[in-house]
């Protein structure tokens, strides 16, 4: 396909650039503020008027990963000098490190559940989309509509039944439970998106492979999958972003073993005064994986976001 587009005038370019820059500032400013707050001292974090220039400190990050206690003044004075830089930061607050915090665990839970559900969703979604795209499935249109309809109400509307079901079958507060739940929520979108991408791949490629002596499954693996890579990548990003950021179900269904980072981060506030730098540090680190994942797949995302509209 080719489009003929008249070259934009310099003024139009300038205005477009300005609008994009403006939009970037509006969206990036809160992010920048959170990242900056993570490096402030608690006093700077709540200073009024807000401080844009400040002395950077790692207190927030140290506090995020540790639990600390106050000890008797005499004992405090008798302590040997701090052995590490982070011990020193804690001592400066007049406290000692009691142990590691649970942020690391929660973060790992997020990784397991987020990436696990995304992977499962891609496997099931691609298989279902392929079947819907290529085979004569009875009641195809009705089934596709049914799949879409599961997305028509906000998932949280069924939170209570899911909570009861999970409790009954022992999925409450388990990694498996959360992976299944996020997969179920994401699957409808995945099937629809992926079916669109697979529909775009001419069926002749597979037929050529069949005639060349490959089985249906080999044809799928060696011919369809590589060509659906763009679609799979962009769909995976959507799924991961949802699972990664999901808050309501995580609050309701996890507490101990399988709690993800989103419900954990707000609890930092409660431990020992309003520790905004620690909260900001937790949020900053939490942003990293999705950012890295998206940047890694951005080439696919850019092509995929047009939903296969650009095909030569």
């Amino acid at each position, binding site marked *: 396909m080719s489009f003929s587009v008249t070259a934009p005038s310099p003024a139009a370019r300038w205005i477009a650039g300005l609008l994009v820059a403006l939009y970037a500032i509006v969206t990036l400013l809160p992010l920048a503020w959170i990242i900056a707050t993570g490096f402030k001292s608690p006093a700077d974090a709540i200073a009024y008027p807000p401080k844009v220039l400040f002395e950077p400190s790692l207190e927030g990050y140290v506090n995020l990963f540790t639990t600390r206690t106050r000890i008797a003044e005499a004992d405090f004075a008798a302590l040997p000098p701090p052995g590490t830089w982070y011990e020193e930061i804690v001592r400066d607050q007049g406290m000692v490190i009691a142990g590691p915090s649970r942020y690391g665990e929660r973060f790992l839970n997020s990784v397991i559940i987020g990436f696990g559900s995304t992977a499962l969703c891609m496997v099931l979604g691609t298989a279902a989309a392929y079947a819907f795209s290529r085979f004569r499935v009875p009641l195809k249109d009705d089934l596709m509509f049914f799949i879409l309809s599961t997305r028509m109400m906000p998932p949280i509307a069924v939170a209570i039944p899911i909570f009861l079901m999970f409790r009954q079958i022992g999925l409450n507060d388990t990694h498996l439970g959360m992976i299944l739940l996020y997969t179920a929520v994401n699957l409808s979108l995945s099937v629809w998106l992926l079916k669109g991408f697979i529909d775009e791949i001419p069926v002749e490629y597979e*037929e*050529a492979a069949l005639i*060349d002596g490959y089985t249906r499954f080999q044809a799928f693996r060696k011919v369809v999958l590589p060509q659906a890579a763009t679609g799979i990548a962009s769909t995976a990003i959507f799924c991961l972003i949802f699972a990664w950021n999901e808050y309501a179900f995580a609050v309701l269904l996890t507490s101990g073993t399988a709690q993800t980072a989103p419900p954990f981060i707000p609890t930092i506030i409660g431990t020992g005064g309003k520790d905004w730098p620690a909260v900001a540090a937790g949020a900053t680190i939490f942003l990293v994986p999705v950012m890295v994942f998206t940047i890694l797949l951005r080439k696919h995302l850019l092509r995929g976001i047009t939903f296969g509209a650009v095909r030569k």
Partner: protein
Amino acid sequence: MAQIRIENLRKDFGSFTAVRSSSFTVEDGEFFMLLGPSGCGKTTTLRMMAGLELPTSGSIHIGGEEVGMKPASQRDIAFVFQMFALYPHMNVGRNIAYPLISQGMPRAEARKKVAEVARILGIEGLLDRPVGGLSGGDRQRVALGRAIVRRPKAFLMDEPLGALDAEFREHMAEELRALHDRMGATTVYVTHDQLEAMQMGDKIVVMNHGVVEQFGVPQQIYDWPATRFVAAFIGSPPMNFLDFEGAVHEGQDRVELGTAAIAVPRLLEGARGALTLGVRPEHVRLDDAAPFRGEVIATEYLGTTQIVTLDTAFGRVRARRPSAEPVRPGARTGLDFDARTLSVFNATTGRALVSDANREVLAHG
């Protein structure tokens, strides 16, 4: 290489019948054309031969073996798609090697075969190129390479030149025919272009609405069409049809068009009612003395010949005449037909009446 025999093949899509009771035979080594207008079931027939579609009924024999229900991967045939279907994520060399790899051929041996095929097709220089940037002709050659590398029992091609521009088509058609003659491979070639079919084919089967109308060598089909449809579909300009009411008897060798008696090959069957006299443009002479009259309404200059269009009481007639012959639009003249070349059709059924002239051709049509 192998003979392909199709018997009473039928394909229904739900309540729609795409192909009904087709029968024909492609002899070993033949370049066989499957010709017909769009939607007549050519592709469906070819896909059934390939195993990409299962027949509703009927049988397909390849090399004497019934393969109707066998999966495509076990039929040992090659298929060239209209859009070539080159794997876009592989380079040219890997595309051609792909069918060999599936048979578990060692890489080194596959590479040798690919090189050999590339030499035959003149694409040695392209093997490392991605298929994305290739020209239409080169894509076509790569698709052919992928087909011939395995030395299959037969080649099935679905409008393989359809995606090329007109100028290049002719060149590729010659190349394809030369390749076939060198390899002697049984080839079934689908086209809706009657000229292409006439030029390239050893044999042609003409289909319409899922039915095989006629099957034979190009010259026979052109001279002695079995049906009015075939007569109209093949030839450009097509055969002229003069519709008249009347009756003919077995043994009769003339038909009455109004007051004019026109000599035709001796008929071997009778018919009555709506009849049609068919005459090819090159078999019309303009002769002032002839009793069948018409008025010249247009002439079209084609270099050595011209097409003269005349109105007659029985319909429009186009005649192919030498350019040197003086013809003036508006003039009334007589039309004389070459008696040995005429066909008479039953207009109700569309079938040609059997005569001394077309008896042999129709006997195996």
